């Protein structure tokens, strides 16, 4: 107990906050945000259309422009916004969707966030941290049986899951190689969702090959933040959390993921907060967020705060906030998770979503347990869409989306500033298209059910025809790789 207390005391390094402040203030000015939302209550139609054009040329919007979009009520304009969102997605990421799975490694947490099932005061949660063997078993299930290539590893804030544990678990996950139907299964990219870390700790994670470092601010609204995160906890320090992406980029992490937990405060404010955050990172480091997440509050065991929350986001507002974010930070990846029910996911996937999860289990150790039921005392919250990866891929293919398992950027250093440039100029989309075809084919050969294979192969044929027509220069090379993959080779990429 004493050890945990002294660990908690050592966490926040004030100088790793102060160095980023301007005149002692952070970059979220609550009054300014509320003022802008109010000021642009009835935005002029022509101006809104100009904003659409700006977003279409893959330029980050200003807070005023975002505030204007937030206030669009006209149904016709909202329909246009949906079109624009899809066009942006197509321009930057083509018809590609990336899939991943969350892997929860531990649910011990020293914090006491009112909305979270894992909070330290919650006695009904069964606490556990995965051992080395259990991490390997979970990974074997994910990479060998289900067919995932990307994971997001999730940790509570606790000395039992400190940075050394995180680094070790990344190495363990990367070490797994499992024989599958035709090739082998392996996790090619490990993202991390953890508490804010110190700069030296982040450097440690860079050394072991961290993918995206993801931390959500939960709420950007200072007062609400202080209300839901008790002051005597680490998480009670708003600025320590707000500047964790500054520290990550300074430490050399290439990709950072930001997000807010929608439902803690007014969704309009959170969208503005995310845009301010993206612009701040762009201006200080030349790199915006690699991904943006927008989870909604979900029921959790013995957590009455959620039922009583007064800012819970309706489905209609949820759709709108996704559209506004898609337009406001057009180059960024947008993550829609299985927290959301299937009907919602099937609808908003068309608003510019780039990443989603499937076969999701968020109980600690739940993948290798093969437990099919959700158990609230083992989970942070309840998930809404329990489709398997095979089912999701089939459904996406029916919609015309190709699931990409590509991690080529990591094989040849197309990361960081370089990928930002390629994304903003629309060039990355071309690499993505080719790599999506190749990695999708690999997946179909190695894991797909017959039904998914059929639907998937039809989609691939359509994609190949498109490449032949639009990128004839690379078509022969693509077919060479494609045939080699059919003959058993793996991991070929552009």
């Amino acid at each position, binding site marked *: 107990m004493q050890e945990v207390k002294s660990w908690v005391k050592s966490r926040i390094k004030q100088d790793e906050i102060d*160095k*980023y402040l301007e005149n002692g203030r952070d970059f979220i000015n609550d009054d300014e945000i509320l003022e802008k939302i109010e000021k642009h209550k009835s935005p002029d139609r022509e101006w809104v259309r100009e904003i659409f054009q700006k977003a279409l040329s893959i330029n980050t919007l200003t807070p005023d422009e975002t505030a204007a979009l937030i206030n669009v009520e006209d149904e016709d304009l909202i329909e246009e916004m949906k079109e624009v969102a899809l066009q942006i997605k197509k321009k930057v990421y083509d018809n590609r969707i990336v899939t991943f799975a969350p892997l929860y490694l531990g649910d011990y947490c020293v914090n006491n966030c009112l909305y979270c099932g894992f909070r330290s005061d919650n006695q009904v949660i069964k606490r556990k941290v995965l051992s080395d063997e259990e991490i390997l078993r979970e990974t074997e299930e994910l990479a060998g049986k289900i067919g995932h290539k990307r994971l997001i590893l999730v940790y509570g804030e606790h000395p039992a899951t400190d940075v050394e544990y995180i680094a070790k678990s*990344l*190495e363990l996950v*990367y070490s797994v190689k499992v024989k599958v139907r035709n090739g082998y299964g392996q996790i090619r*990219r490990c993202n991390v969702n953890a508490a804010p870390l110190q700069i030296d700790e982040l450097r440690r994670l*860079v*050394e*072991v*090959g*961290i*993918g995206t470092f993801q931390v959500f601010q939960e709420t950007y609204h200072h007062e609400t933040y202080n209300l839901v995160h008790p002051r005597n906890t680490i998480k009670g320090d708003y600025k320590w959390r707000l500047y964790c992406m*500054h520290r990550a*980029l*300074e*430490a*050399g992490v*290439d990709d950072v993921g930001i997000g807010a937990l929608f439902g803690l405060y007014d969704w309009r404010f959170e969208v503005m907060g995310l845009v301010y955050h993206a612009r701040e990172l762009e201006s*200080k*480091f*030349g*790199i915006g967020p690699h991904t943006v997440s927008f989870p909604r509050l979900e029921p959790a065991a013995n957590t009455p705060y959620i039922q009583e929350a007064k800012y819970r986001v309706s489905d209609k507002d949820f759709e709108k906030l996704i559209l506004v974010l898609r337009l406001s930070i057009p180059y960024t990846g947008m993550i829609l998770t299985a927290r959301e029910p299937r009907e919602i996911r099937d609808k908003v996937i068309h608003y510019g979503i780039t990443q989603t999860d499937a076969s999701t289990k968020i109980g600690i150790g739940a993948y290798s347990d093969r437990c099919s039921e959700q158990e609230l005392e083992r989970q942070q919250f309840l998930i809404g869409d329990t489709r398997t990866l095979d089912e999701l891929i089939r459904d996406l293919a029916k919609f015309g989306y190709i699931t990409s398992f590509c991690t080529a950027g*990591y*094989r*040849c*250093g*197309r*990361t*960081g*500033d*370089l*990928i930002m*440039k*390629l994304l903003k100029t629309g*060039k990355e989309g*071309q*690499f993505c298209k*080719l790599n999506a075809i190749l990695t999708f084919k690999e997946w179909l050969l190695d894991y797909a059910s017959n039904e998914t294979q059929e639907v998937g192969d039809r989609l691939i044929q359509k994609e190949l025809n498109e490449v032949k027509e639009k*990128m004839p*220069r*690379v078509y022969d*090379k693509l077919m060479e790789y494609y045939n080699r993959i059919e003959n058993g080779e793996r991991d*070929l*990429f*552009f």
Partner: protein
Amino acid sequence: MEKEIYSSKEVQDFLERVRCTYETGGIWVARRFGRRWSFLCGIEPTGPSMPARFKIDDDYMLFCENPEKISKKIVQITNKLRELLVGK
């Protein structure tokens, strides 16, 4: 306040000169972290192709879009890059 990675103007200028002289298209240096290669500095590729890779040392790799014309000079180029990146 900069990202704390090596991105000296010297390396960038050198890669720029190599690109012009040998018509390499995109040419960039990446550093190894665990199993991944992370962009350090250079010029982005002009279009999709599998980049050629030239080892600088165990930690650094040169990636190049059109390697045809630099292949003969690659030893001098990677030596120079090693000198600029790690000082030897």
